[in-house]
Structures are given as C-alpha cells and as structure tokens.
C-alpha cells in the first residue's frame, strides 16, 4: 500500500472510532447527569428503562425522532434549518485535533491516538469554538420569536465576553510549553517534582486553571452562567422554537462542547495522558491501577447483581462484570497496556471535569445578567491578563533573554 492509502485508511478508522465513542458517551453523559442530579436532590433519577435506567438514552433518542416538528410561521427558513447543523458540526469539529494518548502500532502501522496533529492545534480549537457563536445567534434570530431573539443575543454577548478571558487563560500554559501543538504541550508536562508531585501546569498556572474553568463554564452556557436559557424570563432561550431532532442537535452540540472543554482542560493543565504517580524505585506500581480499577468495578457490579431481585439485573450486571474483568486483564498484556494506559488516564481526567460540571450545576444558583457581564469584564480579564504578563516575565527571566 502507498503511504497515502495507509494514511487515509488509518484516518478514516480513527474518525469512525472517535465519532462512535464520542456520540455514545454524550448520550450516557445525559444519563450520568440525570442520575447525579437525582442523587444530589435525594431521589433516584431514571430507573424505569432498563436496569438503572441504562436504556434511557435510547428511549430519549426514539422520542426525539418521532416528535412533531413544527416550524414557526415567522421563521427565516434557510437559517432556521441551518443553525442546528452549524452548532453541532462546529462543536464536533474541535474534537478532531485532541490527542487521547501516545502512539499505537496496529498491523505494522504506527499512528497517533488523535485524528490529526496540527502544529496550531490550540488555535484550531479556538477557531471552531469562536464560530460556534453563529449557531446560537442565528438560531435565536431566525426563529422569529422575541424570547428566542433575546436568548440568542444574551448568549452571543456572553460567549464573546468570556471568550477573551478563556483565550488569555490558555496563553499561560502555551508560554510554558513554547508551542501551540497539543501533543508538545502534554509532553512538556512529563516528570515529577520530588518523585511525588507531577509537573502538571495546574500547579505553576493555578490562577489560569481556575479562570479557564470559570470561562469554560460560561462558554458552554452551563450553570452558573446559563442565562441564555433562564427559563423564568426567556422560556428556553435561543432554542425555544426548536423541537424534535433539531433540538436534539443543539442539545448534543452543547454536551459536545462540554466534553471538548474538559479535554482541553485535561491537556493544558492536568498533563493529558500522563499518569499522576511516579514509579517507586524500579517498581512500576501505577501501571497496575487500570487493572485494579476494572477489577474493583467488576466486584461492585457482582455484589449489586446479587442484591437485586429483578431477573434482568441478575443477568445483565454479571455480563457487565465479565466485560470489566476482561478489560482489566487486557491491561496486564504489555502491547495493549502501553497505549491504553494513556487513554485510561486521559478518560479519567476528562470524567473528573465532566462530573465537576454536573456537580456545580446542582450546587450554585444562576448569575444575574449585569453581574455576569461585570464579572467577566472587570475581574476575569484583568486577572488573566496579569497572569499572562507575569508568566511571560518569569519565562523570559529563566531563559535569560
């Protein structure tokens, strides 16, 4: 095979794989959110469809497809139909440059665990997210309804304002790594201080880490910055007039944005796929953590299945437990372990940020619109700018310019 053909096939396989994993995890992220919300509010969350409500995403999807889809008379039809596509496509585009782990060798072909490695990866993500405003603004405008228009205006004003502090907080880690390529940024965070503390950017760049998280919450329109859809004043904001699959697209796009911003936070501040623990002497104990985690998960599932009375749970949960044991044992096999360990740590860190999103959603109240703007312009931007300046000076001083 020519190098181009191998490249093409490898890329197509990676695109299919990433898209499949991403969309499935988006569906289950909704399930996780509802479960956690239920627990925080002292109720069960979805329980009816499948064991522990595990088939709920499928039921939701079927409902979305078969729902009636009315179009408002006053809508600008072309843009009204185009806006959801725009929102979804642009939020999925950013995921293409995100690296999930090191390299992997399959059938003699070595390839990176990433769809494409651009030397301007970080800027590409910014380009995709800055275009994401169009989907929301145009959806609000084209619906021909004043609630949607006001929601769209608010949303775009908020996203433009917080995009500034988001970009400024990213500059700190970029200066430390001296590169815009996400792979180089992760590689620059390898190693440990005193063999204990990992050299992740979240320690020297703690200010940028916090401001990035705040700005990312605002960019993804999540609580406490979910004013665009403040239901008491604006019904459902920019997607008030959308139903059925068109609404599902906005919904998926929003969750995809959440995943993307969690991935960026992991890559820039938590060392990407680097493991958090050093070896002790020559003993690589941290390499066994994935196996231990999967085995523990299997034990928990088995114990649960014995306690439950329903036949379905008694059959399904042991099946899941067997899968967990299989995956855990695969991690003991070196050719699988080496690339998969990175993906394991990456996924664990992303999951941490996603749970943080959900946790904060059910903890904090919503900002008022003027306080939101004031906070963005008067506090976030000066703090992030100062961080950029100080980081720049320290790096210049240390490299002796």
């Amino acid at each position: 095979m020519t190098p181009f053909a191998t490249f093409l096939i490898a890329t197509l396989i990676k695109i299919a794989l990433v898209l499949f994993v991403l969309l499935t995890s988006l569906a289950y992220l909704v399930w996780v959110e509802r479960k956690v919300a239920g627990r925080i509010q002292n109720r069960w969350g979805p329980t009816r469809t499948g064991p522990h409500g595990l088939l709920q995403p499928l039921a939701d999807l079927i409902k979305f497809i078969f729902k009636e889809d009315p179009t408002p008379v006053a809508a600008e039809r072309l843009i009204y139909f185009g806006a959801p596509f725009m929102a979804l496509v642009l939020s999925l585009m950013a995921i293409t440059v995100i690296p999930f782990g090191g390299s992997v060798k399959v059938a003699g072909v070595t390839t990176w665990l990433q769809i494409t490695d651009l030397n301007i990866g970080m800027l590409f993500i910014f380009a995709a997210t800055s275009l994401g405003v169009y989907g929301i603004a145009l959806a609000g405008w084209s619906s021909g309804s004043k609630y949607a228009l006001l929601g769209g205006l608010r949303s775009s004003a908020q996203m433009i304002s917080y995009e500034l502090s988001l970009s400024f907080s990213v500059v700190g880690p970029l200066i430390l790594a001296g590169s815009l390529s996400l792979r180089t940024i992760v590689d620059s965070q390898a190693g440990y201080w005193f063999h204990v503390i990992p050299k992740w950017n979240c320690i020297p760049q703690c200010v940028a880490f916090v401001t990035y998280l705040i700005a990312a919450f605002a960019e993804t329109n999540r609580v406490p910055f979910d004013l665009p859809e403040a239901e008491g004043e604006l019904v459902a904001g920019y997607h008030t007039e959308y139903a059925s699959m068109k609404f599902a697209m906005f919904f998926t796009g929003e969750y995809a944005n959440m995943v993307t911003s969690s991935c960026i936070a992991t890559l820039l501040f938590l060392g990407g796929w680097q493991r958090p623990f050093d070896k002790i002497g020559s003993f690589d104990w941290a390499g066994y953590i994935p196996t231990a985690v999967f085995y523990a998960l299997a034990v928990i599932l088995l114990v649960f299945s014995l306690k439950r009375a329903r036949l379905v749970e008694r059959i399904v949960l042991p099946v899941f437990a067997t899968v967990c044991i299989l995956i855990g044992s695969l991690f003991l096999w070196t050719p699988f372990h080496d690339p998969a360990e990175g993906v394991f740590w990456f996924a664990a860190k992303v999951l941490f940020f996603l749970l943080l999103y959900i946790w904060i959603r059910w903890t904090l109240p919503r900002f008022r619109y003027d306080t939101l703007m004031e906070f963005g312009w008067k506090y976030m931007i000066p703090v992030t700018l100062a961080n950029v300046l100080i980081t720049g000076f320290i790096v210049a001083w240390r490299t002796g310019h």
Partner: protein
Amino acid sequence: METILFFVFAALALGSAINLIRESHPIYSALSLVAVMGALAGLYLLLGAEFIAVVQVIVYAGAIMVLFIFVLMLLNAEEEVKIDRTKIAVRLGYPLLVLLAVEIISVLRAKFPSEITSHADLLNGDNTREVGRMLFDNYLLPFEVTSVLMLVAIMGAVVMGKRKS
C-alpha cells in the same frame, strides 16, 4: 488535488462575494461575508500558511463578523428597499465593468509570471514562531503604531458612548 481545492475555494469566495452584494437582507449579506472569510482561510491553508488561515477565521469570522451580526440582530435590521438606479449608472456601469476587468487582467499578466511561488515558504516549519519573530523584530514599529491607533479608536468610542445627550 491542490489545484481542485484551489478552484473550489476560489469559486466559493467569488460566489459568496457576489451574493453579498446581491442579497437585500443585511444578515444574509453578513453571512456571505463570513463565507468569503472562510474560503480565504482555505486558500491560505493551501499556501501553507496555517497560522494566517486560523487567525483569519478567529479574528474576522469569529470576532468581527459576530459583532456585525450581533448589531444587526440588536437593531432588528429589515430588508433593504431597492431604490431605482440612476440612468448614468445603468448606461455606464456595464461598459466600465468590462473596462476594469480588462485592466486588472492585463496588469496581472504583465506584472506576474505564470509560475508564481508563494512567499509562505519563508515561514516553513513552525509557522507561528516565524510570524511572531517577524512581527516583533522587523516590523516592530508598524505593529506598535497600529496598536496605538486601535487604542485611540477604542477611547473615541468610549468618549462618544459616555457623552450625555
């Protein structure tokens, strides 16, 4: 492959530019301009200038045009009413258009050889680093003067916004 992509992006840019003028609704015009910016970014990518391409999208399509559309939405701009064109425009417009086209083509053919190599080659390797180095070494003065100019414009806007009417 590159030639095909060039024609695709060029056609997209020209088509959107024509649509920008033809469209009577300001929001559709603004969106056509966004499409022009996107197509230009694609052309920059073909030249190997990744940094310029992405900055084109971030700054023009992602920031400036978003503000344009934001203001158009805020003012609730309606469709423009076409007014009758003057007779001079109708009679002289098309001949002058042909004349301009001939002029542009003849100048381009005289000034540029058929084999043009792009200057993006100068920025080979780490594109961004080279752009930064050029901006802060060779073109430091123009860069600083431009930023002062923008600061003046911002201050002017603040002063006008603060004025009590």
